[in-house]
């Protein structure tokens, strides 16, 4: 241990501000990157899921439409 006390540790021989600034900013940037990387994985999965649901909905709509056209061919469907 290079430092006698906790306050000396914080002070870093007078360079405290610069040392803690560097370590702090680095930690924050890395944490942010890690966080966004982890959430992007779940976000991608959710997006794909949402699209699948949309496709299901679309398929349903088309099925209904086809049924109704076969039932009464005279009716205009749009």
């Amino acid at each position, binding site marked *: 241990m290079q430092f006698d006390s906790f306050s000396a540790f914080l002070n870093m021989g007078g360079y405290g501000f610069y040392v803690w600034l560097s370590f702090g900013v680095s930690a924050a940037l890395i944490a942010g990157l890690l966080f966004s990387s982890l959430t992007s994985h779940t976000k991608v999965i959710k997006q794909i899921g949402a699209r699948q649901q*949309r*496709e299901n*909905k*679309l398929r349903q*709509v088309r099925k209904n439409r086809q049924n109704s056209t076969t039932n009464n061919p005279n009716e*205009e*469907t*749009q």
Partner: protein
Amino acid sequence: MSVNQATSLTPPLISVTNLTCIREERLLFDQLNIEINAGDIVQVEGPNGSGKTSLLRILSGLSQPFEGEVFFNQQLISQSREEFHQDLLYLGHLPGVKGEMSAAENLSFNLTLQGAPNNAVNIEKTLSAVNLTGFEDSLASHLSAGQHRRISLARLYKSTAKIWILDEPFTAIDKQGVRALELLFKAHIKQGGCVILTTHQDLLTFEPEQVKKITLDYVFD
């Protein structure tokens, strides 16, 4: 050049007097007089380059004519801008749809800008009327040419404007879509609106005598 005569005693919705248009030093139409009443559907006809787009832009106030005046409810449109714009829906060659916004966002913006009350259920129903169910949240730039135009056309379904001016509304639209639009026009004129449009296809579900025609053709003086 055919000129439509007033057919009823009520004052016409739009009337045009002595309209002359010159583009590129070429006379497109000369001394045109038109009256369009509630309940009319008017098809502007003519070969390519005969001045259909130019006429529609003048009617909507986007371009100034070389000579002549356009009246809305017997007032000059330049003098009753606000009332006229409230009763006007113009769709030009360009759809006015932003590629960066989704179909739903585009429609909702367009409707609100026109003064219609905005609510989400409405938007979804309107989009399904133009067969865009499932594409509500797709960015417009990711849609096909026809789907892109359908976003723009969707606002017709919620429009409270009386005067619809549509420049080739059927471009890129498939047959089913064209039929649905024609039905919409029918409903609109039945409610006392009027439709002024250009198209190179024939209107299929209208009786020929139902559609008033303005035929433009090359003039040489």
